[in-house]
């Protein structure tokens, strides 16, 4: 089948995941001819964000596998001395999928009226605008009771991330977004709350100076100790000798030597250093430094969260790539890679031969023989739609919680609310990520049981309503279950799971992906375990510098107004105020 895509490129990128997109943008930015393909009809691959409906579709495809019909091994497009290597099926990489509703399909009794209205709106898609406001109204009328139909009606208001991640305010991605001027394509919110789980309750971790001042969770002496310790870590330089003798010990051992209270130990070790009991001391200090250096740039915690979900970020880089001439084709799969000697010459896609100097592949699109023995296991993920926040406060919060588990990696939990446009009003979205040990359900169980109400909600009985609840919980939600007798109450206060999705996917960040590939083929890992994007940016940079060692990586892109276009400029009136100071 012929199409009108040009057939020669300097770089072909397959898959629109984070790393692939950064590399595509960087190559396009320095003037390389880039073709960027994705077999899906959406951007991001395993880094995508979905509406509820799109998620269902994705799950179907994961379960059933996509029909891949074209397996032409010996095409006439393959020349002598060349070998065609088939590309596998990405959907085999998502497994252990468990989906569960905790609410009825439709609300009984009083729900009849609403479901009638719901169907009405569904039936008349032309009135989508009215329909939406109407459904929001229904939501208001009866926002303590939920049913599947209601969630599905509001499905377009979800942005459900496959790979939820945060950005360190001074991390490499933020710096890259700024230096490359790509930041104008995205919007962010500050994470405004770091929680931790200690002695069976949620607590707000004081991490900035203002937090330490305001918190009532730590005593006066603890405040000083905490500030001293944090200052020490910020000012730490390798030549200093504060950490002498702890080079081979764990961060925990170092903190113990400082005679910190158990409370402080917990805050520093699990929340601020983002470590666990076995993290080496110097690694922990480095993480603490990273955490603290990002504080205060945009808010009171070190983290930013992309509005409309993390799936926006790869698209920002794709957009830059396209602005500089990159060619995009979604819903277009590569069938095979053509290799001669130890070099990749071209790809075959949809019956065309597309030549390239460099080929960049996401792991999900890589031929099995390029991957070698890359581990299949990796991440345990959970996505939960909740009826309220895990810790209610006056204002809507955006929360990071590293849920510590004895002897294991912690479970990274991100909770986002409607103001970040990832879910409709009245609901919260909770993401859990951890290292896979067994499967997602088992691995995430401790956090799910501790934080969430997992009984089936029949849609008739309403639990304590959210409004009165916020007056019952303490401000900041700092100790929801501080009193022993309020345990039962806390049980009721726990958010109800409305919908849960568990799955596992591979984590290849620890694996050397260049082992089994031709020299001009570059593999990109999927989402890694870490909460941030440091790994993806680092990998993209290293791939780029392998391809173009002498070129600058994503120099600042000019603003539109900086570009002089060779068109008639009298297209519209000048956009400026008429009352400038007279002197000028």
């Amino acid at each position, binding site marked *: 089948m012929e199409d009108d895509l040009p057939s020669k490129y300097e770089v072909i990128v397959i898959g629109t995941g984070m790393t692939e997109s950064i590399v595509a943008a960087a190559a396009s930015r320095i003037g390389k001819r880039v073709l960027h393909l994705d077999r899906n009809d959406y951007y991001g691959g395993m880094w995508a964000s979905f509406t509820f409906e799109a998620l269902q579709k994705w799950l179907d495809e994961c379960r059933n596998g996509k029909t891949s019909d074209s397996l032409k091994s010996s095409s006439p497009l393959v020349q002598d001395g060349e070998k065609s290597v088939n590309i596998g099926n990405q959907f085999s990489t998502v497994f252990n999928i468990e989906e569960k509703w905790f609410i009825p399909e439709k609300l009984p009794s009083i729900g009849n009226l609403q479901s009638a209205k719901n169907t009405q709106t569904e039936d008349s898609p032309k009135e989508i605008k009215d329909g939406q406001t109407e459904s929001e109204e229904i939501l208001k009328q009866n926002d303590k009771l939920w049913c599947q139909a209601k969630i599905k009606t509001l499905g377009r208001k979800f942005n459900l991330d496959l790979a939820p991640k945060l950005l360190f305010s001074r991390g490499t991605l933020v710096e890259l977004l700024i230096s490359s001027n790509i930041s104008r394509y995205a919007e962010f919110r500050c994470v405004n709350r770091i929680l931790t789980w200690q002695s069976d309750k949620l607590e707000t971790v004081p991490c900035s100076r203002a937090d330490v*001042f305001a918190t009532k969770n730590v005593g*006066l002496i603890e*405040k000083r100790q905490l500030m001293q310790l944090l200052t020490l870590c910020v000012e730490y330089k390798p030549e200093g000798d504060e950490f002498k003798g702890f080079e081979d010990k764990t961060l925990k051992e170092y903190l113990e030597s400082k005679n910190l209270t158990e409370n402080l130990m917990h805050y520093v070790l699990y929340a601020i250093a983002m470590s666990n009991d076995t993290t080496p001391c110097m690694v922990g200090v480095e993480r603490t430094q990273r955490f603290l250096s990002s504080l205060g740039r945009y808010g*009171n915690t070190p983290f930013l969260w992309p509005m409309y979900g993390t799936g926006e970020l790869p698209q920002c880089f794709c957009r830059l790539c396209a602005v500089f001439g990159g060619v995009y084709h979604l819903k277009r799969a590569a069938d095979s890679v053509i290799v001669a000697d130890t070099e990749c010459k071209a790809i075959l896609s949809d019956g065309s031969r597309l030549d390239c100097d460099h080929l960049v592949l996401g792991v999900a699109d890589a031929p099995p023989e390029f991957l070698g023995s890359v581990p299949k296991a990796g991440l345990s993920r959970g996505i939960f739609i909740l009826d309220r926040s895990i810790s209610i406060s006056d204002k809507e919060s955006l929360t990071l919680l590293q849920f510590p588990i004895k002897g294991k990696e912690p479970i990274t939990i991100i909770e986002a609310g409607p103001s970040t446009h990832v879910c409709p009003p009245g609901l919260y979205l909770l993401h859990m990520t951890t290292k896979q040990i067994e499967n997602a359900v088992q691995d995430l169980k401790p956090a799910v049981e501790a934080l969430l109400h997992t009984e089936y909600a029949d849609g008739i009985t309403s639990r304590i309503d959210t409004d009165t609840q916020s007056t019952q919980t303490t401000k900041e939600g700092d100790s929801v279950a501080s009193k022993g007798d309020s345990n039962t109450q806390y049980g009721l206060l726990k958010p109800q799971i409305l919908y849960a999705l568990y799955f596992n996917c591979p984590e290849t960040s620890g694996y050397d992906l260049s082992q089994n590939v031709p020299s001009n083929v570059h593999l990109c890992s999927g989402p890694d375990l870490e909460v941030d994007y440091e790994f993806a940016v680092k990998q993209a940079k290293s791939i780029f510098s392998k391809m173009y060692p002498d070129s600058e990586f994503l120099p600042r892109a000019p603003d539109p107004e900086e570009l002089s276009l060779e068109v008639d400029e009298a297209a519209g009136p000048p956009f400026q105020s008429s009352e400038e*100071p007279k*002197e000028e």
Partner: protein
Amino acid sequence: MHNRQKVHTTEAQKAAAEREKEKKLQFYRQSINDVFNRRTRNEYDVLALKSSEGLLRANPDIVTLWNYRKDILLHLNPSKEIINDELYLTEKCLQVNPKSYSAWYHRNWVLDNIDSSADWNKELSLCTKYLKMDERNFHCWDYRQIVASKCQEPHENELQFTMEMIESNFSNYSAWHYRSKLFSAAGKDEESTKISELSLVESAAFTDPSDQSAWIYQRWLIGKLEPSKYIYKVSQIKNKIYLVLNKSLPNNYKIKGLGNNNWEQLDPKIWYTNVNNLDINSVEIIDETNQVIDGILMDNIRQDIFQLNISEQLRLVLNAQVDSLRQLLSMEPESKWALLTYVLLLHTLKLNNYIENCLKNIKLLKVIDTLRKNYYNDLESRYQIEYWIANNNNTDTVHLKGLGLTAFYHMHMFLFHKNIDLSDNNLSNSNLSHLKYLLMCKNLSLKNCQLINLNNFPALPSLEVLDLRENQIQETSCKELTKCESLKTIILDNNQIILQKTLHSITQFINIEIV
């Protein structure tokens, strides 16, 4: 602009810049002349108003232009639209210079005098918005105080607002200061507020002991504690009765007693009346409802005069603060503010052995904060003198020898003493005027006090013997002594021959003893 490479400009660039500057200057002169000409022609119309707008938007700090605008506005009886334009102009000017006194003032003036339907509530929310962006702009904080009182915003709301600002960054003098204003204005029972404020300050102190703002607020809180008693002593000198106070009397208080309410003021803390033949045995201070505030028997001394009025509950809180400061100091032994506050609290509470502790720590403060050494010296002098007064009821002799005094405090409490020994201290002539209270003093020793002249030495009516040994007093400065009518003897040492000669030439009646 830090760390910018300076590039040498070429001659041509220089000249171009010069021309540009000249052009601007020309324009400025033209514009400002235009404005002034209009002003001399008494033009008070919209055109005149427009004429200074551009100038102010470039430089909002030309006060004269604002004043001309005020004149115009007063003549114009302006429409709502003109008023809004005027307010908009101040907004624009504040963007140019957020700390322009005149722009802030003008805005306030317009709303106050021109805008009959001024929306102060809107101003208040503007202030809130502004302070969220520029949290430490004291101009806006000051303006907010005015605005809040205009729209009678409840104190609670304003306290809540300052609290929010302090919670987001407690290093904010303006916010703390506003709290102090709000509490003073509320005038309500301050006990519980004081306690909760103290714990707030404590939290700031432990979070960052090197940040002054909260410490200074704490000083204000402690400093508001008043001595519990007024009267130190009542006694007779010749035909007058003198009443010595520790603090000056509020206007609504009166002195009563001795069958005579005709008391006159010698000094805010010293009152006197002529002796009547009535039996005199006590003096009282009463308020306007004749309630007795304080009273004392004739010739008695109140020894606990420096005790402060601290309730039991507050005392408990302050004691706990002393303990936590001790802990803080064990973690940060060189924290100046922690140490100073510790000293202040010890002195406020007067716990056992407080004086040794205070002096020891003041000594340390002088070492870690050498820039303020003299301040600490004076503080030490005050503590020493107060301690002596509180622990001696000898009415004849004052012993403040060798205490390293650099300043005098409470000298009016020595009004009745006959022998006063101030030798071996580090004084200067600027301190000497404080000796004016020593009305009964016969023998005064200023031996070895580092004096280099006697300027400001007061006329002491009873002084007979003055010891000036071991000072470096210059010859030209002893005329002051001739004003002391009863002075008979001045004691000098052998090194002061020149002084001796000078004294001889000035006063033949004074006996000069050389020791």
